[in-house]
Structures are given as structure tokens and as C-alpha cells.
């Protein structure tokens, strides 16, 4: 009831915050990528609410300040500067898109405030410096997961890919998948691309159909995959489609039966009996009335990992906090057990989900490459 799950954007006015610890989140809450920003924020808000209900961190309540960056690098820089300088947050969560994490990351690095990106997968994000962390896969790993699953488990050799060339996530994952798949001895027959805002993929799918691949790797977001799948089926492309964690969403049911028998890599399985997972699913569903997508789960994990580090940190001073985050080992998160490695990336396993009747379920686990 109190400012427990405050997503308030009021600047610190002393009285309102009391002794609360402030953390910031920046993301695209409006504009064309709002879907992802809102999901992440929902996950973070849920984590904050739970944490505060459980007495906060070290006896202090957490206050979350969320700033919208409209999906623009410039706004991201401004938002993060404001979070740090005006609001005095001890840590920053964000962004979904790698390009914006890369734009705003240097601010955190310079100001010595740790930043945890929930879902920026480009390897270069954490290369900004020792203040920048993440809880998601990086592209090379997930690309490998997709490739090795297709090659080793499904025994498929001939791939086509269809990716969003204007999105770093999609383009990065595509590249890593192709690398890995070819290294494993597979053959990528054709790579096709689309751009943000495209909604008709029949031209690309027609080109792919001509090559007759055994499967299509589609490293995109669920917002596009549904249409791609439907159009593929209409064009008579019947091979399985395989994707990454961008697929995770209950909106996949929008595809009807078009995605039946398709697979995607994910951080965790919703059938996983671990209490972290089941609690999260239940609470998320009761709070927001829908199942979380991976952005929400990663936002939730990023926040909880941060709280965990806060508890362990010598002080909430940026460098102490960063040290604590860096030393995270086997943290029990929804999206798997996270260990922060020397690159400040998250080491965790990946699972493969299979889709049937608009629902997805656990299919396999993939180990990291040796």
C-alpha cells in the first residue's frame, strides 16, 4: 500500500523516500518498442514489491524509479544521467536493446554506478567497463544453443535464417547461429532479412522456400514471429522454425497452429518445479493477468540479483556494489542459476521449448560448448 511497488517518477524529495534505497530502471516505456520496456518494468516492479513486502534490503525499503527513454539513445543517456545525478540511485537496471545499453552504459561506468542489463545480448555491452553486468545470454551462447540443438538433437543439416537486420539482437544472434551451425558441420542455405516495421515476409519466405531448407532459424521477437509463422505456413513452408528467447510469450498462441512443432531456446522452463519459477509465474499472473515473457522474467531476475548483491555488499557505494554483483555465484533466479563470469556476463544453462497448440513446454537442455 505504501510506496511499496512505486514506479513513481517523482524526483527524490527526501520526505517521500525516507530511508529507502533508490534503484533506477530505464527502458522504452512508450514508442514502438514499448512492449519490451513495459514487460521488463513489470518484472522489476514485481521483484521490488516482493522484496519490500519481505522487509526490503538490510531493513530498508526499495524505491524504484522508472524513466522512459522512448527507445532513443539520447533519451537513454539523459534518463540514466538523471537517475544517477538527480535521483541518486545506487544502481541502474536496463536496457532491453543493446544499442541503448551501449549508449547509456558509459554514463554508469563514468559515474561509478553499477548497471545490470536484463536482456541486452550483444557481447559488447559488458565490455564498456567493470560497472556493467547482465543476466541474460549473450548472442554467441544462444546462437550455439540453437545450432547445436538443431544439428545434434534434431539432426538437421540444412538451415535457412530469417532475421531482423535493424535489430541488434536479431542480427547478432543470426550471425552467431550461422557461425556455430557451420562450425558444427551444418549448412546455411540462405539468410534473409527484414526490418523493423515490416509485416509482410512472404517475399523472404518465398526465397527461402526455393532453397528447401530443413528448418528456418528465426532469431526475432515474438511480435514478429507470429506473422512470420503464419505466412510461412500459407506459403507451404512446412519445416520447423527455431528461435531464441525473444519468442517467449503467451502471445505465441496468436499463431494458432502455425508454430506447432517449432522450437526455441529459453532460459528456463515454466514446468520447472523450482520454487523460484513457480512462485514467479503465479505472482506475475495474479499481478498482471498474463504469463510473463522472457523480458519480464529477466527484469525480475536482474532486480533480484541486484538485491542479493546489495545484501552481500560492504556498502551501497558503487564499487562495493559492483564487486558484490561480480562475485555472484549460483544465484537462484527464475531464468536459471546465474553465475556472473569474468566478463560480467551471466553463465547459465539454456533449455529448449517446444510449441504445440499455441503452448510451449520443456523439450531439452543444452549444455554450453566445451
Amino acid at each position, binding site marked *: 500500500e505504501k510506496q511499496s511497488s512505486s514506479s513513481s517518477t517523482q524526483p527524490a524529495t527526501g520526505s517521500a523516500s525516507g530511508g529507502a534505497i533508490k534503484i533506477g530502471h530505464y527502458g522504452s516505456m512508450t*514508442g514502438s518498442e514499448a512492449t519490451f520496456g513495459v514487460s521488463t518494468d513489470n518484472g522489476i516492479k514485481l521483484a521490488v514489491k516482493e522484496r519490500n513486502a519481505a522487509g526490503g534490503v538490510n531493513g530498508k525499503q526499495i524505491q524504484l524509479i522508472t524513466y522512459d527513454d522512448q527507445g532513443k539513445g539520447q533519451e537513454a543517456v539523459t534518463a540514466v544521467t538523471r537517475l544517477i545525478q538527480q535521483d541518486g540511485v545506487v544502481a541502474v537496471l536496463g536496457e532491453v536493446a543493446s544499442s541503448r545499453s551501449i549508449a547509456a552504459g558509459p554514463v554508469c561506468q563514468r559515474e561509478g554506478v553499477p548497471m545490470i542489463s536484463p536482456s541486452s545480448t550483444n557481447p559488447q555491452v559488458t565490455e564498456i567497463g567493470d560497472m556493467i553486468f547482465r543476466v541474460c545470454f549473450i548472442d554467441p551462447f544462444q546462437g550455439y544453443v540453437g545450432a547445436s540443438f538443431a544439428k545434434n538433437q534434431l539432426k538437421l543439416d540444412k538451415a535457412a535464417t530469417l532475421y531482423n537486420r535493424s535489430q541488434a539482437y536479431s542480427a547478432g544472434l543470426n550471425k552467431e547461429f550461422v557461425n556455430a551451425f557451420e562450425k558444427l558441420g551444418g549448412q546455411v542455405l540462405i539468410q534473409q532479412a527484414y526490418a523493423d516495421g515490416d509485416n509482410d515476409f512472404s*517475399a523472404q519466405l*518465398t526465397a527461402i522456400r526455393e532453397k528447401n531448407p530443413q528448418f528456418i532459424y528465426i532469431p526475432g521477437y515474438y*511480435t514478429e514471429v507470429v*506473422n512470420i509463422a503464419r505466412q510461412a505456413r*500459407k506459403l507451404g513452408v512446412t519445416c520447423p522454425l527455431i528461435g531464441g528467447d525473444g519468442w517467449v510469450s503467451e502471445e505465441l498462441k496468436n499463431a494458432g497452429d502455425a508454430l506447432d512443432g517449432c522450437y526455441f531456446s529459453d532460459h528456463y522452463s515454466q514446468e520447472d518445479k523450482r520454487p523460484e519459477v513457480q512462485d514467479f509465474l503465479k505472482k506475475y499472473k495474479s499481478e498482471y493477468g498474463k504469463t510473463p515473457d522472457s523480458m519480464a522474467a529477466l527484469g525480475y531476475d536482474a532486480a533480484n540479483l541486484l538485491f542479493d548483491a546489495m545484501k552481500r555488499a560492504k556498502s551501497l557505494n558503487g564499487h562495493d556494489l559492483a564487486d558484490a554483483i561480480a562475485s555472484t555465484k549460483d544465484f537462484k533466479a527464475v531464468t536459471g542459476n546465474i553465475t556472473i563470469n569474468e566478463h560480467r556476463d551471466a553463465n547459465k544453462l539454456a533449455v529448449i521449448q517446444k510449441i504445440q497448440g499455441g503452448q510451449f513446454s520443456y523439450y531439452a537442455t543444452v549444455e554450453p560448448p566445451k
Partner: protein
Amino acid sequence: MTQLIQTLTDGIAVGSLYALIALGYTLVYGILQFINFAHSDVFALGAWLSFTIATWFGLAAGSGATTPPWYIGLAVLALAMIGCGIVGFLIERLAYKPLRAAPRLNVLITAIGVSLLLENVGQLEGMFRGHHFKIFGPYPKAMPALIPDRVLLHFAAVQFRLVDAVVLGTALFLMVAIQWLVFRTRLGMAMRAVSFNHNSAALMGINVSRIISATFVLGSMLAAAAGFLYAMKYAQLKQTADNVWVLLGLKAFVAAVVGGIGNIRGAMLGGIFIGLIEFFGVAYLSDKYRDVYVFSLLIIVLLVRPSGILGKATVEKV
């Protein structure tokens, strides 16, 4: 060969959707000489309204859902058109009308403002005074199928579907209907008079405000129809601020310009042209530069014919 025919059918199918949206641009431009940048948002609104109304009717998407009888689809379409018509009316009255005498650039900026407003209101979802509310929300939704998914024609692996036929047919029908309206009716004559000069039209006893409102309402209803058909064709609707809508609107606008903005048949021609260029470009050149083809075509056409393919060059008498 299959690829050629496939590309051709797809290009025409998507092109006729462009044409449908372009009709609205061209109508408003032809009468008011004003690029209604909010048109693509009314189009998005049309699609989302169709979804919302279909949901009210208890329809749902997904596997196993059957297509309801045809009159339900028609009812959804009609209601969406009415809804968008009302919104179009309000937009014109509240945002554009006060700017009648202002420079055109101002109206353009206002249109951008309206567009931002519609986008951001559409994606709203949140808490207000402890109540959860939602306009359309930030998540994509699946439109229930109202047109049976039937294949009309087969050619090897190429299928021509009912939905595409309906889109093409509607575009053609509306083109003819608008052409008739503008050139054969009293309202159309008044519209053309208003397009020349508001004051002169008023001196003929024409209620200029009403004609402009009518134009806008009509344009918005066209957008709604296009939105409905879009929802039929692509099932999944992205949130209102998504680039999909903007880009579709932009390409439709480009189509209108290529065909000769203000020219109703030009919109149709331009739409199909753009659709074909896009698909043949992706299929036979490179998938990387889809939008580049469209915009390059635009630039080339305008350099060769500065007022579009069917547009009339307005020579100023000195």
C-alpha cells in the same frame, strides 16, 4: 517460374493494401492539399477497433476457432468504420479546424502531434487511481478470422487466397466509388470547389466546414476499412505505436505520391506499383534494401514526372 508468379501475386496483394490506405491519403490531400500524417494512426485504430469489436462479439483467435457468418464480419467492419469516422471528425474539429488560416506547415506539425497522441493513447495500459485500465495496451493481439481462409487459385506452389482477393476487390471498389463520389455527385463537386479555395466555395453557399469534416470522416472510414482488412490479412496486430503502422502508412503515402497525389486512380496504380517493386526487389535483388527500393522508386518517378504518374502538373500562369 513459381517464384515469379508467387512474387507477382504477393506484390499485388500487398500493393492493393497500400492502395487502400493510399486512397485515404489522396482523398484528403486532393481536397485539402494537406498531408494527413495521422492517417496511418487512424488506420491502426481501425485495425484495433475491429479487434476490440470482434472481441465484444465473443470471437477469439487461435487454433480451433471457426469463422463466424459473413454478416458478423460486415458488422465489425461497419462499427470500426463508424468509430474511426467519429475519431476523424473529432480530430478535424479540434486539431485542424482552428488552423484553417494557418500556414500548411503548421497543420503538418499538428498532424504529427495528433499522430503521436493516437499512438501513445493507444498503447496505454496502467493504473489510474487504483483502477486498472487499458486502451489497447502495449502487447500484440491476434485478430479473430472473420473471412474464411480459403484458397481461390492454385498454381504449383502459389496460392491466391480469399483474403487477398477481398483486399484487391475492396480497393478497386472503393477506388471506383470515390471516383464516382468526387466527380459525379453534388458533394464531390463541393469538395472540388473547396479544394480550390475556401472563400470562393463559401461564396457559392457551400458549408465549407461541413465539406471538410465530411472529407475527413470519409478518409478516416477508408482508413478503418483498410485497418480491418489488414487485420484480416495479418491476424497479429502490433501495438499502436509500432513502426509497422507508420511504415505501412508511409509506403501508402509514397504510393499516393508516385501515382500522383490527389488522383484517385493514381493511388491504386501507385499502391500496386510499390507493392510489386518491393517484392521483386527482395526476391531478385537483395532482401536488405526493401525500403530503399520503395524510396528510390519514389525519387526516380518524381524526377521524371514531378507530379507523379497520373498527377497533373499544375502550371502556374504568370
